[in-house]
């Protein structure tokens, strides 16, 4: 008789938040299917589930699960917090959006949850397999989310473009991973780093091919130029609430992926990837900021601005130091507040048929809705990087990290492009305050929308006025590895 081995259930403790979210996703789709008249519960269930997961993540002690495949370290905690907070705010905003466009709510919220699980897995991955699975679990629901609103004029086009570029990037990344496996004989990220230093693989040509493929794959995912071309189309075509979500959470998860591979897995090849990233960061800031100058559509302008912000965030990563990584993480937290805030205001402006997101539509916003205009002013100041908002502090730490690592020219370029970006951000403010409104209708906002706006405003101003606490938090978590 075969005695089954006793299962040690304590191994699942580190992944409890993820399991909880998978459970919530299943409950959400079941609730939508079997109790269609209880649909108003869906957003609240999403929010409560994500909040519980957030508390569990923040309260968890550092742990290693599944033989090093799953790492619950400080690095993971920061990225998980960003992704969970984004989903909570997106769910709060979605109530507003449901009134504008009829969306399939059960699918919408459960896909959001499943994508969130993928992001949490990326943040915690200690192994290339988990990294890849997390990446696909994040990306596949988002392809579906972009195309979910089938009656939209551009949604299917955006979904196809996103799907094809995302799939191509994944394939490139995977080939790079398979080469890494062949060279080091393992898929464990810390063991890969060890094997590279022990066996002196840093100059190997196959190693450089693997590095290049992984770099291109990651650059696609975080939209670093010249691999950013899908971003504006997808961001413009998708429903605004999903664009807001996509421009923050998957980008943060993409940086988690970037950091796991390059900062943890390939630190010994920093001499190779540091300068390449410095050039790409400059190119990204140039393309993002200069193309944003000639956009009339506010959504598309914010899409290019998110490309430019990916360029800034790379500045911390390319330094290859713990301070640089902490600066990138800090910046992503601040970016979460300012970008979601700007998109929330854009959502207020958007009318039922998806129009109303051009520059002309924000003319005279200050007379139509003074509070919304004042909030947009703060978010745009923060995106530009004007003190005392969080955006200034975030950029300051990033530039400092890159400067300390010796990338002086890149830092100079970043400052110049940041100055250029002031033109198109402040142009929106000029339209809001110095032009007469084209339409006189008031703006309606749901209570969830107000909650999001207040949270974003507090985040942007709080990080700007008390800059030390956020950086200390990320540095302490990263140092506690």
């Amino acid at each position: 008789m075969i005695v089954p081995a006793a299962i040690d259930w304590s191994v699942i403790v580190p992944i409890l938040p993820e399991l909880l979210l998978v459970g919530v996703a299943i409950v959400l789709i079941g609730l939508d299917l079997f109790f269609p008249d209880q649909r108003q519960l869906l957003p609240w269930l999403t929010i409560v589930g994500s909040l519980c997961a957030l508390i569990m993540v923040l309260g968890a002690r550092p742990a290693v699960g599944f033989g090093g495949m799953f790492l619950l370290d400080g690095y993971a905690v920061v990225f998980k917090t960003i992704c969970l907070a984004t989903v909570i705010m997106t769910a709060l905003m979605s109530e507003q959006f449901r009134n504008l466009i009829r969306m399939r709510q059960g699918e919408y919220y459960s896909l959001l949850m499943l994508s969130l699980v993928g992001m949490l897995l990326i943040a915690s991955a200690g192994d290339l397999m988990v990294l890849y699975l997390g990446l696909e679990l994040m990306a596949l629901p988002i392809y579906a989310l972009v195309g979910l609103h089938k009656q939209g004029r551009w949604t299917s086009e955006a979904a196809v473009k996103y799907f094809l570029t995302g799939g191509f990037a994944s394939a490139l990344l995977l080939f790079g991973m398979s080469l890494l496996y062949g060279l080091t004989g393992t898929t464990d990220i810390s063991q890969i780093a060890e094997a590279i230093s022990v066996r002196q693989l840093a100059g190997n040509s196959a190693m450089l091919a693997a590095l290049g493929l992984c770099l291109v794959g990651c650059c696609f995912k975080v939209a670093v130029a010249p691999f950013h071309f899908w971003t504006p189309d997808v961001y413009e075509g998708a429903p605004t609430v999903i664009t807001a979500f996509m421009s923050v959470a998957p980008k943060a998860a993409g940086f988690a992926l970037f950091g796991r591979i390059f900062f943890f897995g390939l630190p010994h090849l920093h001499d190779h990837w540091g300068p390449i990233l410095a050039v790409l960061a400059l190119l990204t800031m140039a393309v993002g900021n200069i193309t944003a100058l000639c956009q009339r559509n506010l959504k598309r302008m914010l899409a290019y601005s998110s490309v430019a912000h990916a360029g800034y965030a790379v500045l911390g990563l390319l330094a290859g130091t713990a301070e640089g990584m902490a600066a990138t993480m800090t910046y992503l937290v601040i970016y979460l507040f300012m970008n979601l805030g700007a998109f929330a205001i854009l959502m207020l402006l958007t009318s039922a048929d998806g129009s109303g997101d051009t520059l002309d539509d924000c003319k005279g916003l200050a007379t139509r809705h003074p509070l919304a205009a004042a909030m947009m002013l703060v978010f745009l100041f923060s995106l530009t990087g004007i003190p005392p908002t969080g955006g200034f502090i975030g950029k300051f730490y990033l530039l400092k990290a890159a400067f300390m690592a010796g990338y002086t020219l890149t830092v100079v370029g970043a400052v110049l492009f940041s100055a250029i970006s002031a033109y198109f951000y402040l142009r929106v403010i000029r339209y809001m305050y110095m032009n007469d409104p084209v339409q006189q209708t008031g703006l309606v906002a749901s209570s969830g929308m107000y909650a999001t706006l207040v949270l974003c405003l507090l985040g942007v101003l709080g990080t700007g006025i008390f800059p030390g606490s956020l950086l200390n938090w990320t540095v302490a978590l990263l140092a506690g590895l």
Partner: protein
Amino acid sequence: MIPLSWYIALSIMLFCVGACGFLTRRNVIIMLLSLELMLNGVNLNLVALSYYLDSVRGQLFTFFIITVAAAEAAIGLGIAVTLYRSRRSVHVDTINQLKG
């Protein structure tokens, strides 16, 4: 015994054929097939390396990739169907309304 380099060469060829197909073909379905070809190049690489390294991780990885590729194909075809319904075509040259 077939040397490892042959397998690697074959997998690189498969991957490159897939990549070229993806970049040159203009039909969404064919592009999807090219993506699958690229993934199969990766799978072959991983399995061959796994055999020669005498480590089981590569084969495990391949199983996961095959599973994910199936899910990816399902979503991709679903998106292609919605595209066809709205545009009556799955040619990428016709999806050019978003630009600027």
